[in-house]
């Protein structure tokens, strides 16, 4: 089945692109706020449904909703973050657990709300890019690239580039990195920690919501899709090293490629067993991720 090799690689990378969209905001949130947001999948789900509603109301392509969705959800995240901060701080201790359970509660509330408003069925977002695919063939080798998946990858890379630029080249990014490194010192240097935290969380939620639109277009959307997406976000971020944003693309592609190769060349029944075992073993050997740059 060597003829499938290029396709396996491409499928893996595109799958990785999906994982990247899910994990990049999450990694940023963890790196700066030290929060494992259990609700990451449900933010994505809400974004997907927002895209669906947008399409139903305005009869426009869902991809056009992206800026609107980003702004709305970033604002929601900005407003929500102080509550999260309250949970993380103070004399209560165990911030990791408190944040985890708090966001778990939020995730449940989001899921229930989506179930109430949108019901139990699975929907699909249809865009102009949904059906196209590019074909290449040379001799017996061939390649098919679905356009919508490629669009997802492009989106993910664009956001990564944007985030990197933000973090490395702007003052605001400097403030974020300072807070991530050492909150007290950053405060002493004049960084407004509250605003920075709120902004980062807003950024994360906005990105996740936009991701929802892509997931709805590439795959499908339903009120219960949150937990499975959160699973992959955790996976990727652990592999990359928690809080190490630069590692996320590599970890995403690795995950996509491993899955793709496993599905094509090995026994598909065991793919998740293999993945979780690999994750567990990697955590044991190198908890700070593949690049040992985790927080």
């Amino acid at each position, binding site marked *: 089945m060597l003829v499938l090799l290029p396709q396996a690689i491409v499928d893996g990378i595109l799958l990785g692109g999906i994982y990247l969209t899910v994990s990049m905001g999450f990694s940023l949130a963890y790196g700066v706020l030290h929060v494992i947001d259990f609700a990451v999948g449900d933010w994505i789900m809400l974004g997907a449904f927002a895209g669906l509603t947008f399409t139903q109301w305005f009869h426009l392509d869902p991809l056009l909703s992206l800026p609107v969705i980003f702004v709305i959800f970033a604002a929601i995240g900005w407003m929500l973050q102080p509550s999260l901060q309250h949970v993380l701080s103070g004399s209560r201790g165990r911030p*990791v657990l*408190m944040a985890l359970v708090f966001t778990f*509660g939020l995730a*449940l509330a989001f899921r229930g709300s989506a179930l*109430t408003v949108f019901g139990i069925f699975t929907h699909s977002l249809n865009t102009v890019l949904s059906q196209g695919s590019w074909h290449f063939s040379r001799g017996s080798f061939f390649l098919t690239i679905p356009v919508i998946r490629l669009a997802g990858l492009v989106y993910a890379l664009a956001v990564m580039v944007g985030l990197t630029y933000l973090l490395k080249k702007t003052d605001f990014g400097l403030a974020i990195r300072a807070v991530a490194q050492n909150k007290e010192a950053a405060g002493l240097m004049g960084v407004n920690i509250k605003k920075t935290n709120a902004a980062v969380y807003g950024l994360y939620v906005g990105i996740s919501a936009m991701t929802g639109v892509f997931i709805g277009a590439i795959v499908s959307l339903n009120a219960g899709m949150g937990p499975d997406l959160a699973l992959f976000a955790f996976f990727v971020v*652990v592999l990359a090293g928690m809080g190490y944003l630069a590692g996320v693309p590599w970890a995403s592609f690795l995950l996509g490629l491993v899955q793709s190769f496993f599905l094509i060349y090995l026994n598909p029944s*065991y793919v998740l067993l293999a993945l*979780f075992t690999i994750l567990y073993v990697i955590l*044991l050997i190198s908890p700070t991720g593949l690049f040992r740059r985790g927080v």
Partner: protein
Amino acid sequence: MRRLPAWVWILLVIAAVGTVPLLIRDAFFLRLFTEALMWIGLAITWDLMCGYTGYLNFGHGVFFGVGAYTAALLMIKGGWSFAPAAALGGLTAGLVALVIGWPTLRLRGAYFAIGTWAMNRAVLQLALVLDITGGADGLRLPPFLDPPFFAYVMLSVVGGTFLVLWLLLEQAPFGLKLKAIREDESGSLAIGLNPALLKLQAFVLSAVPVGIIGGVYAYWITFIDPLSTLGDLVTDQAVVMAIFGGLGTLIGPVIGAIIFFAFKTYFWAYLSDYQVLYIIILGLAIAATVFFLPDGFWGTVSRRREGRRALRKGLAFEKAKQT
């Protein structure tokens, strides 16, 4: 009131609770009674790792599933009778804890949480793909439907677990040693403790009762499958119950389990048309509890009482000084 040792009181309470199946014979009530006890057991053992030792075990349910499947397989394929099968379920869970605990406990905080959760998911997948577990079809046990029997079995297991944990955590130094690890693990080395060994002991101790409970569950429900025994639901609910009640105590998770279970069951039995609403309310309740009552219901109450007691003592002392 005479000062009876705490363990006597605990036994008295267990005995008092034990009269309930004699007085109320309704089969449905006994089922709820048994399930409530089951959750108490799951919540207090989880709290042992989190509240006392400071390690977030997000794979707590794996012990439950391992115990359930071990007991089920022994009874179905090996023809074992119930008690030894459930006991071995506990033992196997303890063994699993020993084997995975040793490498996994080297992880801290969020890493330990995700590591245990990944391990749980891996075992779930294993149960789904192996033939011997029946895969997704699950296993059916020989039915033995006797609500009072299971009520007493669950009470004995959970009551016994509570007693043992009380003795080890609140009477013996073990509890203090674990709390030392929770507060400052590297510091505990300095005072001569062996955190690696202590953590492992706590981990295994949290696993064995859960394995037994899993075995009881299997025989009680007569049907088990990977998702219901190894899924996230077991761990998630135990976590929420312990937090509702209050971490770092044994009473806290008991209260939390009862409140949560009563709330959930009430909704399920009498408001089932609004089940979706239940999910929203539950989510908001969890978020609100973490936000406003980080010590849980019991924790907040007991802290207040301690505070008032300390205040009274302080005032009395001041007064005595003046005279």
